[in-house]
């Protein structure tokens, strides 16, 4: 039973490990990071978007992406919900009012989807070759020259943004919006922002954009939901949204929380070196104990065997000496008898002569 006790201790260690990992073995729990100061961003005003898809066309041109089957002026594509693809860094979706709610007369809502350039990008946290970088300009960029194509970034992104060139045999890349980082470095603004006819996109410093957004909300309180999407979601993003309708209505998830992605895995990562530090000690200890137990068991067995052997030997010897004594006694009796007989015969012979 002590064997299962030992095993139980081992599992207890693992379970205790897990509890530690589950709570706050978070190395950065008391640290606060505010991001690169003065980083740029884009404010998307959903209220102003009319779904003209000019931004899509501009993005396609600026990034020299493949021309789609349907031209950008074709608004029938809005009948279906789309997501970003390996040929489209950005898409605009139309969100119709839900049927059966009595709100069918409401106007449809249009929203532009693209990489949100998170302050703490999940893709950068997930990538095992550091192919993603959060630049100080605010853009999250991708380095195709080191990418192995594991696609963990696509699993990690809470906004489902990165797309993959599955039909490329030899040079498949992850494809996503770059916030036109090369253009920003040259002092220009992103292609989509430049092309928007309704000023639904504003490029500027993130801090300024938050101020502008708050001002706009305060100025037209009946036209805006009092929330800047991206201010805190997933730890904050550089692409911000304000809207006249609840964000859920515009197809945006409101249940993502404010925990930045790297913090989601920091607990598990923190457990790794503890296992490395303590498991060898634990296991060597168990090994030493089991070896000791084995040695003691061997010694006890040897002792028991020796004792048993000594016991049987002593008993055998006792039997032998008893038999020898008896044999000697018997012999003595016989000899006495013979001597007596001889003496009697000698006396008889003497009498007769």
């Amino acid at each position, binding site marked *: 039973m002590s064997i299962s006790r030992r095993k139980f201790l081992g599992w207890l260690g693992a379970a205790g490990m897990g509890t530690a990992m589950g709570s706050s073995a978070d190395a950065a729990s008391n640290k606060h990071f505010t991001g690169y100061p003065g980083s740029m961003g884009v404010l998307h005003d959903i209220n102003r978007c009319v779904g003209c898809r000019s931004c899509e066309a501009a993005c396609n041109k600026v990034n020299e992406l493949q021309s789609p089957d349907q031209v950008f002026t074709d608004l029938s594509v809005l009948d279906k919900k789309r997501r970003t693809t390996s040929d489209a860094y950005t898409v605009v979706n139309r969100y119709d009012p839900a049927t059966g709610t009595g709100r069918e007369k409401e106007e449809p809502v249009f929203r532009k989807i693209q990489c949100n350039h998170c302050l703490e990008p999940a893709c950068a946290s997930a990538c095992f070759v550091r192919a993603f970088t959060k630049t100080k300009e605010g853009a999250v960029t991708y380095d195709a020259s080191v990418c192995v*194509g594991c696609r963990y970034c696509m699993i990690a992104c809470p906004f489902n943004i990165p797309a993959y060139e599955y039909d490329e045999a030899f040079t498949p890349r992850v494809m996503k919006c770059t916030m036109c980082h090369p253009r920003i470095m040259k002092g220009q603004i992103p292609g989509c922002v430049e092309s928007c006819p309704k000023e639904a996109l504003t490029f500027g410093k993130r801090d300024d954009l938050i101020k502008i957004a708050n001002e706009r909300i305060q100025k037209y309180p009946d036209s805006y939901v009092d929330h800047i999407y991206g201010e805190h979601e997933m730890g904050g993003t550089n692409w911000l949204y304000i809207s006249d309708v609840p964000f859920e209505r515009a197809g945006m998830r409101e249940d993502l929380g404010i925990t930045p992605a790297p913090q989601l895995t920091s607990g598990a990562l923190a457990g790794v070196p503890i296992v490395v530090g303590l498991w060898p000690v634990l296991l060597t200890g168990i090994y030493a104990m089991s070896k000791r137990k084995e040695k003691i068991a061997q010694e006890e067995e040897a002792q028991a065997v020796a004792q048993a052997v000594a016991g049987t030997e002593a008993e055998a010897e006792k039997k032998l000496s008893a038999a020898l004594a008896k044999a000697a006694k018997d012999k003595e009796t016989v000899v006495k008898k013979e001597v007596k007989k001889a003496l009697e015969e000698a006396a008889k012979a003497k009498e007769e002569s």
Partner: protein
Amino acid sequence: MSQEAAVAGKAPFTPDRSLFTRFNVIAGIIVIIGLVITILRFSGGLATVTNLDDNYPWGIWIGFDLMAGVALAAGGFVTSAAVYVFGMKRYHSAVRPAILTGFLGYALVVVALHYDVGRPWRLPYPFIMQQGTTSLLFEVAACVALYLTVLFVEFSSAPLEWLGLKKARNIVVRLTILLTIFGVVLSTLHQSSLGALFLIAPSKLHPLWYSGYLPVFFFISSIIAGLSMVIFESTLSHRYFAHKMDETHLREKEGVALGFGKAASLVLAGYFAIKVIGISVDNNWHLLGTCYGAWFLVELLGFVALPCFLYAVGVRDKNLTLIKWTSGLTVFGVALNRLNVCLIAFNWHLPSDEKYFPHWMEIGISVFVVTLGIIVFRFIVTRMPILYEHPDYKDGH
């Protein structure tokens, strides 16, 4: 295998009539199909042979071949720990088969990985180019690479004996305890980290499967999978390779099944308990009444609680048949759990017309990879001292 089938399939000019056994023919067909799909995959890209898309970047090559494969190969560290660290000498004959299964399992995981990643020739990049140290996948990659090396060295004693390289073999055997401990450390790390991979996507994994305890769940269930795979593999080996087993192996077999079955029952009980705790900690009881909740209960009751109970009954009654069938049930259950976390409970928000189902060619490669494993297993087991002790090395390892 069956001689009649072999004779029936014999071509007139074949000198070795036993080559076309039923197994060989089927395996051969699978291998040929696999090779064709391989060419398609690498000449045409992933889109040619998979149903992967931007919403489902990981399919069955990750969900099954990698995740389930690594869990099922855990018998190596579990058995060697039991025998060498915990000193349970009566399971000694199970070590080499378990190490072999483990080694082949991990090797095949690496093979499957070459199919899945976009640029497999860049697989060494995280080690030689840039280290994504914040990534749990980096940790998985490092640990799997190191552990595959450990398994290879542990396994190498058998081919070294086969080749008669006494000196090298003795060095390897002297390293046993060190390799075993290192193996347990590495296994703990990567088995748990495979679960931890999903910690980064709480919005995508159904809350009944998403938990801060994912790493613990994966580690504990890997022990369960390892124990059960040893029993399962032993059952199959006994059926097809009994003629290769020596007296010790045959004698200890029952003890292995009873002992490992007992351990598996105990660990399954613990796993069940912590799974329930996981629900409680996140207050997800109400979710059990949903559709996904029902599926979660199928996994928890049918493939955790049930095998726990069946193993216990089997051990108490010394019912080896029950234990053997339960090991199969358990192995299936752990594989099911990996598929649930990776594919079925993943993206649970998505409408059903956007959900993923593997392309037949993806299944083809998975079957191909497993078949390769069986072929290599058979080659090794019929020639090298795995199921028996080499007469020259009876000193005991």
